[in-house]
């Protein structure tokens, strides 16, 4: 048996990273070429590799379209990795920043601080989002713990739904109080990559990269943790510290994503489960692949958001929800 030395997914996994990255680059270029005016892929490539400010298309590519594509890459990777981590730590296939209330918690905190208190310092936004995500996670977990049977997968999702509905109502009320400010926030609140604020993106970047680095550093331990706290502790893991670090990474990744693009639901659910279909269960493969696939997924979704009803553009968050909800149903049927 020639494949004896490699696990089931080993061979595919050793060839595929190059292919995965190539697809990501392709999705990136495609994303840039699509828009009010289609710019051919060769022009996009030239604008990036040999920028010429005299050419109008180059200006469009570099000034308008590349920032949006970069946001899609970063946010897609962050939400997917956060979802994969949450599924590992909670041993709950339905765990995801959106379903467990972290996205709405972060968004609510940002709305409160920006919309109601009128504090809009870009450096503050990721921090506020992180505090909101952490608080929402704590409340959702607390409710599920108090439920009979403890934090079972669907209990957590229900608890997340209740908290999301509550915070969503508060956001709506707040928006009625101050229509002017909220006109600006409205698109952001549905999850959009349309107008990434460069200053906010720059401030969110350290959170995002920090979260990714910590997550990838935990990959090996996450696989051991997936077998249960006691097995993991027996293998020499510090289970408490590992969970705390994973939570910190999830909160940082969620906060950065929300700061850049508002709440984009279901990305953290769809992408890691898609990845597991070909990469298996080992987090050393699941996490890096979630980053790559998540980036590509959000690029494609954002292309769809702009093409489906063109020239009208719909919010990216609406498309992630439209695609994600059926997959959620499929997961509930198959995995629970």
């Amino acid at each position, binding site marked *: 048996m020639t*494949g*004896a*030395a490699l*696990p*089931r997914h080993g061979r595919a996994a050793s060839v595929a990273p190059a292919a995965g990255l190539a697809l990501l680059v392709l999705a990136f270029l495609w994303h840039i070429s699509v828009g009010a005016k289609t710019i051919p892929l060769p022009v996009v490539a030239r604008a990036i590799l040999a920028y010429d400010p005299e050419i109008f298309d180059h200006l469009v590519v570099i000034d308008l379209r590349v920032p949006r594509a970069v946001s899609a890459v970063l946010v897609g990777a962050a939400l997917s990795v956060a979802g994969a981590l949450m599924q590992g730590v909670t*041993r709950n296939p339905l765990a995801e920043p959106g379903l467990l209330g972290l996205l709405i918690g972060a968004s609510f905190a940002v709305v409160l601080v920006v919309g109601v208190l009128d504090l809009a310092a870009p450096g503050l936004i990721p921090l506020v989002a992180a505090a909101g995500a952490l608080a929402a996670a704590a409340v959702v977990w607390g409710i599920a713990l108090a439920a009979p049977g403890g934090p079972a997968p669907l209990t957590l999702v229900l608890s997340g739904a209740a908290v999301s509905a509550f915070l969503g109502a508060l956001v709506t009320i707040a928006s009625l109080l101050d229509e002017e400010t909220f006109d600006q926030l409205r698109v952001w609140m549905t999850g959009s990559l349309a107008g990434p604020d460069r200053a906010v993106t720059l401030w969110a970047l350290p959170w995002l990269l920090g979260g990714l680095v910590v997550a990838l*550093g935990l990959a*090996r*331990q996450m*696989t*051991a943790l*997936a*077998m*249960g706290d*006691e*097995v993991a*502790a*027996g*293998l*020499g*893991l*510090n289970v408490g510290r590992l969970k705390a670090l994973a939570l910190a990474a999830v909160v940082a990744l969620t906060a950065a994503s929300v700061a850049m693009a508002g709440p984009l639901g279901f990305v953290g659910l769809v992408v890691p489960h898609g990845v*597991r279909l070909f990469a*298996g*269960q*080992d987090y*050393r493969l699941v996490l890096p692949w979630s980053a790559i696939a998540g980036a590509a997924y959000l690029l494609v979704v954002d292309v769809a958001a702009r093409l489906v009803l063109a020239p009208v553009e719909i919010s990216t968050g609406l498309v992630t929800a439209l695609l994600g909800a059926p997959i959620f149903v499929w997961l509930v049927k198959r*995995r629970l």
Partner: protein
Amino acid sequence: MTDHTAPASAPLPRPCRLSVRSVGAGYGSGSTARAVLQDVSLDIPDGALTILVGPNGCGKSTLLKTMARILPASSGAVLLDGRPIHATPSRNVARRLAILPQGPVAPEGLTVRELVGQGRFPHQTLLRQMSRDDRRAIDAAMAAADVAQFADSPVSRLSGGQRQRCWIAMVLAQETDIILLDEPTTFLDLKVQVDLLVLLRRIAHRDGRTLVVVLHELNLAAAFADLLVMMKDGRIVAQGAVDATFTPQTLQDVFGLRARVLRDPDSGRAICAPVIDVPQAMAAQ
């Protein structure tokens, strides 16, 4: 790593690398604290199969977890190679002592090889992953537990006995001198239980590893134990060779079971036969 080369004929008392000294342990803290173990002392003989029995809820799993440092001791100490195990770096312990907790569940889709590979965790670092040594240990463990033929199947698709052998392979891949197993035979057919215990005894006697196994099935415990330990209400009630401990008196004391202890005519092994009251009316018929 170790210099524990036992003399050719081990004198009594046998050497022991793992011992429990007046240990108390339990769950919760503050007002919800609940003591389970009380003043438990036990020396685990090296290279032997120690079997732990006792009624449900008497604290067998609690003792095993405390011995493996995954549960703290509220009093006393567990000594591994003479040092308190709870004060030793966990990864360092994991290279000498492995534990298989009760009823572990593998994540769906994880293959047998991936599961067994987790046993190598304490031997790897972020920079040194999956060496040739790791692969050799994984293959050897899968062969020993007889699961090599399933290497690339998902664990969740195997039968109960096959799954249990996969977990044992994971613990074997850890290549520790001391192995603690919590009810590794529960829910298995009798034949599969016997096969598994034969395997465990071979690991102890042929490879010189130290095994502590919690068992439910009394007659199997009596058939395989080098040291039999009986627990009740968080205390050790009897410990010693089977002939000394497996008596009608201790069975009554520990399990509240009225039983006769018989001898297998061929092997001379002790077997317990519960005494079953036959109601007078039926007896008269």
